[in-house]
């Protein structure tokens, strides 16, 4: 069984998925970030491939992407870094990026390379479900790579069921109508959406992302799903001064509530 499937088989609750942009804050930080996240008890890591025009992302992630590109990050460099990471780590890794990046690398070549370096799955927000199903599904399956699709509060039920049949081993549940990093806190409207999805009896577990930034929002997300995805808040934490590994450990423990000051970080 692959790393990603195993995680979801072994753990159904409180899964913490952290996103970071590869090449930020520095070109060579990828290994340090992944190892520190793993050491801090993060279950799943989403590696952002920096992109010039990330239309589903907010300003925090876009700025980190611009900085990463200015640092010289490329897909080749990133694949080399992941190869190095895999010599020491078995943590599940997902790559997140835009379809044009995969297209320019060459779709087949890209998927082969992902498999070769030890990537477990992909999130490509602008690859439409229908295009995936007709053009790429067979290829992903042949390569043994997962693809994770998103649902939002506006996604119609029939479409959610279709997404459920194509996404694996989880569904990325966008918490609100928003780009990443746009909103803070979770509202009653969102709670009723979480409950609605919970009752749909989907085969895939869900991880809730967008607007999850701290202990409180992480706990709420865990109450209504198998866990949460944090991106922008983590990128912001990387901006702070000090030792990178310590900052990462502090951030993760504050989210998980294992730090002494956890009870104070409620906003």
């Amino acid at each position, binding site marked *: 069984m692959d790393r990603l499937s195993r995680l979801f088989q072994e753990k159904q609750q409180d899964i913490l998925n952290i996103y970071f942009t590869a090449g930020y804050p520095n070109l060579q930080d990828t290994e340090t970030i992944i190892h520190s996240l793993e050491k801090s008890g993060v279950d799943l890591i989403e590696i952002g491939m920096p992109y010039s025009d990330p*239309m589903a992302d907010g300003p925090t992630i876009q700025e980190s992407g611009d900085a990463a590109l200015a640092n010289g990050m490329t897909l080749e460099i990133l694949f080399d870094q992941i190869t190095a990471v895999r010599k020491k780590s078995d943590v599940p890794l997902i790559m997140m990026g835009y379809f044009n990046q995969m297209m320019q690398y060459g779709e087949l070549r890209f998927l082969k390379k992902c498999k070769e370096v030890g990537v477990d799955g992909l999130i490509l927000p602008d690859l*439409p479900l229908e295009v995936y199903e007709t053009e790429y599904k067979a290829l992903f399956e042949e390569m043994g790579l997962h693809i994770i699709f998103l649902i939002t509060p506006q996604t119609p039920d029939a479409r959610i069921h279709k997404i459920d049949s194509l996404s694996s081993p989880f569904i990325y549940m966008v918490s609100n109508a928003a780009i990443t990093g746009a909103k803070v806190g979770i509202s009653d409207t969102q709670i009723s959406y979480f409950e609605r999805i919970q009752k749909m009896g989907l085969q895939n577990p869900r991880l809730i992302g967008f607007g999850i930034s701290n202990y409180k929002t992480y706990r709420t997300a865990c109450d209504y799903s198998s866990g949460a995805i944090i991106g922008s808040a983590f990128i912001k934490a990387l901006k702070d001064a000090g030792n990178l590994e310590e900052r990462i450990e502090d951030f993760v423990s504050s989210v998980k509530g294992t730090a002494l000051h956890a009870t104070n970080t409620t906003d």
Partner: protein
Amino acid sequence: MTYEVNPNGFYGEFGGAYIPEMLFPNIEELRQKYLDFMYDSAFQKEFQQLLKDYVGRPSPLYLAKRLSKHYNTNIYLKREDLNHTGAHKINNTIGQILMAQRLGKKRIIAETGAGQHGVATATVCALMGLECIVYMGAVDIERQAPNVSRMKMLGAKVVPANSGSKTLKDATNEAIRDWINHPNDTHYIIGSVVGPHPYPDMVARFQAVISEEMKWQLNEQTGRENPDIIIACVGGGSNAAGAFYHYLKDTDVRLVAVEAAGMGIHSGESAATSVLGTKGIIHGSRTLLMQTEDGQIIEPYSLSAGLDYPGIGPLHAHLIDTKRAEAVSITDAEALEAAFFLSKQEGIIPALESAHAFAALDKIKFSNQDVIVINLSGRGDKDLGTYIKYLDQYG
């Protein structure tokens, strides 16, 4: 060969809707309804009435005698510069504001580069009493100040796009993000034949009024509907799409798409997408765009803000790819020269974008028998600041 969009939104291999799930409900609703709305008789009646009484259509087709004499041929100008707000952009915004009303949307967003589409959007929002938010690159806000003031006077809110290179591409990204954040009450009026399906087709159909009029106007003036050559500038490509639309199947008509070569095609400061572009995805559409090997989108350059876009609409990518249209690249200097020349020859100061189309006359072959139509897509008032700088050099 077909030049119409297929049900999935493709022209040949170009087009489609490569959008995040967050945009799916809005795009899908539009895709399902746009043709029914557009060809509904009440819609058409209102659209045609507004084009006539508010925009001032039909725009004249004018035989440019002195220009024709200079080039020893027969040159007609399709005078989109005489439309209300000074360019072809209003044809599309009138159509889309009627669409937005029928979709029940209360809030309108748009992107703008030079500000022409922003002004045309602010205008129709004022006309219909709808809230209007225009995203504009912070750099463009600086260099197109008069249009920013126009939009504000018309009641629109102009929001600076501070991400990336702070120009049209980034304004478009910001508008898309706004739409993601406002999935229920908002319609996005895209200004060109770009973006996810059905936008390229919808905008082309609204702009098609240009070639529809050309057919009967040419027939009146020359006794035949078809010219030998149509020349139009292409940024995203909406004025060209409108000028070519009813001639796409008439292969006896040569279609010339004129791009901005900026400081020179291979100078590193260019927007000549047909030469420099490769197949990829920009703003939800599979088309030709300027990008690195890694798929990062390259910032284009042209002195003309309206042609300063790193992609072209999927229809144009298809027309160029299948050789139905020929692409010509014109530098800043050639466009400026053409703008000053037209001003003195015909008493018409063209928009800098449209001046690129006139400069193409020096690049293509034609005979003294040919009938050539140049789509004069906009007037030059907005470019006066630029023209004044070059008055000593070209004037």
